[in-house]
């Protein structure tokens, strides 16, 4: 799975929901009631670098170990846990002239994480 569970330390998606009522924005944001921002966290050891998602198959891991061992001599920065899939956030809100505005903001919700 791609969600961070229990003690998993590998790169994964940490769910994080912002409740607009909790932050006092429910008066001007009509819909939705909150924003599932989510974020990526965890480690990216070299043998899973470049994995699109964290579900690295055994075969891929072996291939990457070979790659990593040969590559370990090369100078190379760490691999980072970053978003690999995101979707828009649809908002319905009041602007300061009390007009109702509807818009889709692209790339606001992190759906999956992977190692760069």
């Amino acid at each position, binding site marked *: 799975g791609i969600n961070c569970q229990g003690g998993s330390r590998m790169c994964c998606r940490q769910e994080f929901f912002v409740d607009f009522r909790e932050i006092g924005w429910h008066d001007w944001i009509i819909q939705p009631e909150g924003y599932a*921002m989510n*974020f990526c966290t965890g*480690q990216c050891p070299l043998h899973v670098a470049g994995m699109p998602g964290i579900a690295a198959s055994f075969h891929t891991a072996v291939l990457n170990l070979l790659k990593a061992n040969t590559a370990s001599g090369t100078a190379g920065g760490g691999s980072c846990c970053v978003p690999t899939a995101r979707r828009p956030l649809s908002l319905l809100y*009041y602007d300061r002239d*009390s007009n*109702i*505005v509807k818009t889709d903001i692209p790339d606001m919700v992190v759906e999956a994480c992977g190692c760069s």
Partner: protein
Amino acid sequence: IPRASDSQCPACKGPAMDLDHQRELLLDLAKRRILDKLRLSQRPTLNTPVSRAALRTALQRLHGPPQRTLPEADGEQEYEIISFADTGLSNINQTRLDFHFSSDRTASGMEIQQASLMFFVQIPPNTTWTLKLRILVVGLRDTNLTLATQHQLEVDASGWQRLFLGPEAQAACSQGHLTLELVAESQGGQSSIILGEAAHRPFVTAKVKVGGKHRLHRR
């Protein structure tokens, strides 16, 4: 944000932080992200709250389910706006409607794609009324309103009317302020046939694009 002190991602040089501080940081990040993407410097403060009745009526009329529009290549953002009228009665047969479009968007180059006026008329049964819609714009040299163009429509039943607004009105919306006048050719009516109370407040719906680079207009 690293989860444990030894999981230092090269990109995040900070020390691991406690969960409360982390939560506070993430809430602040989420707020800033939403405001940035909406081109707002701060969250709006609502001066004239909209009644639930007006909100419900307007949303029923807004175009169907949001069409998932992929963002334009050059970063334009699409909006649909409903602007409620500040109504003023010039006289029984003449209703003035003022609409304000937020300067947040006009500042970054608002391009009106399509705009239409929605208003509710209440006329006696079995009568037909002629309505004139005047689009008034601020004159170039003075602040007086001048007639830009005029539409005429025949109404033979009570209910919601929709009028598509042309380029003059769209240009006025892009500038942030649109003034319309609805004139009913009277048959001696005792009260205005344009209703303006909560659930029947006239409004303009507009499809808007903001923030793209200067679009080349193909001729």
